[in-house]
């Protein structure tokens, strides 16, 4: 080993020493990173789960709001149509009143004319017998033309008036949409509250950790809350369906009540449970079928294939599925 070799060896040893020194300095930093990742991992997992859960609920909330808008528009249009009709009916009633007033005026004038003729005849000492043809003619006109015309107009006015009562019933029915839409909005508000509380929990965890500095204070206000509705509203999340299937709904319910009298409630309940199981099986089979199709299409080729139903639309396969979603999916086949 010559002097050059020894120099190289010493340099290498020096480099190795520098590396160890660097390692000693880096280790605490690496430990910090390790602790940071350890701390952030559950929070990231929670954020991920929360985002997934909330995203799953969003389409339903969006659908509920869309139906609220649709129902409100429909009800408003119905009421406006009825109001247009009421305006027309008001004109009809006014026109009938005017006609009746004119007819009564004519009748009154004719009566005065006849009375004047009678008075005139008496004053002249003429026999009233001579007025008989005029009196008969007057009575005929009144009986055959004037009175029937008034009756006809009164009958028509009465019909128009009755139809106004029906219109008010229709308006009352359209206004019931307010109850249904307020339940939908309450349901969406409840969802927003859930999202808000989940996000708050995550933000609080951030604040409790050493990651506090990562939160932009400008964008996070822990006191910000979803607005409380003007009154406490209990809601049926499926109430919006009542807007879609108003026809036959009452008669279906009447028929269940009738059946319960004949068969008894327990029997009806058994039938309902068996129907639900049947529906569940249909949905389950469909899901399996879709999964199989997806797998087989994947096996034959790696290219993306057009699947008749988008399984992702079903969301979590363990969750309940609504009839609307089933119809929407089946409609696409």
């Amino acid at each position, binding site marked *: 080993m010559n002097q050059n070799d020894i120099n190289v060896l010493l340099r290498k040893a020096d480099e190795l020493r520098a590396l160890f020194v660097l390692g000693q300095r880096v280790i605490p930093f690496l430990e910090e990173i390790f602790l940071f990742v350890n701390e952030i991992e559950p929070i990231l997992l929670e954020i991920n789960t929360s985002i997934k859960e909330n995203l799953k609920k969003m389409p339903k909330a969006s659908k509920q709001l869309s139906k609220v808008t649709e129902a409100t528009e429909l009800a408003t249009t119905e009421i406006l149509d009825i109001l247009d009709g009421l305006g027309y009916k008001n004109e009809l009633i006014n026109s009938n009143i005017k006609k009746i007033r004119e007819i009564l005026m004519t009748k009154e004038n004719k009566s005065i004319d006849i009375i004047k003729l009678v008075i005139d005849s008496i004053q002249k000492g003429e026999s009233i017998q001579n007025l008989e043809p005029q009196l008969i003619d007057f009575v005929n006109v009144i009986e055959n033309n004037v009175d029937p015309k008034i009756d006809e107009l009164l009958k028509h006015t009465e019909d128009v008036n009755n139809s106004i009562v029906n219109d008010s*019933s229709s308006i009352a029915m359209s206004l019931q949409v307010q109850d249904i839409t307020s339940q939908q909005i309450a349901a969406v508000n409840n969802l927003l509250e859930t999202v808000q509380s989940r996000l708050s929990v995550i933000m609080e965890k951030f604040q409790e950790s050493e990651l506090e500095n990562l939160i932009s204070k400008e964008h996070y206000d822990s006191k910000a809350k979803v607005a409380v509705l003007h009154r406490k*509203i*209990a809601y049926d999340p*499926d*109430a919006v369906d*009542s807007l879609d299937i108003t026809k036959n709904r009452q008669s279906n319910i009447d028929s*269940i009540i009738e059946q*319960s009298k004949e068969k008894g409630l327990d029997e*009806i309940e058994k039938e309902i449970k068996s*129907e639900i199981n049947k529906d569940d099986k249909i949905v389950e089979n469909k899901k399996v079928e879709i999964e199989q199709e997806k797998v087989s299409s994947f096996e034959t080729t790696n290219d993306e294939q057009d699947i008749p139903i988008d399984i992702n639309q079903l969301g979590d396969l363990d969750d309940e599925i609504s009839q609307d979603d089933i119809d929407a999916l089946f409609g696409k086949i």
Partner: protein
Amino acid sequence: MKFLVVDDSPTMRRIVINALKQFGYDNVVEAGDGIEALDVLKKESNVEFIITDWNMPNMTGLELTQTVRASTEFANLPILMVTTRGLKQDIVDALKARVNNYVVKPFTPQVLKEKIDAILNK
């Protein structure tokens, strides 16, 4: 005849009360939920008919029905459920709680009248 109309929606209460007035029933008292309805029943004398919604805060229409049926004083009062809930299971649950009849919203005044008449004519 004195009616008690129970619904958390003031709009719905007004619609039902207007319909009742159309049918000639002017004597109506109202409540915004089941708890309030029970208070009204105790305070007001001679309530002869209850028309109640199902979904209400504090005490639902179903719970109100069960409470009324379990009481000694009001157990036999006719109860008509008027609600948006229309699932078969809902109807069975309401019948089990012993409502006298069931109207689904939105309803026409004619349907409301038919059901009231049907209960009263029994």
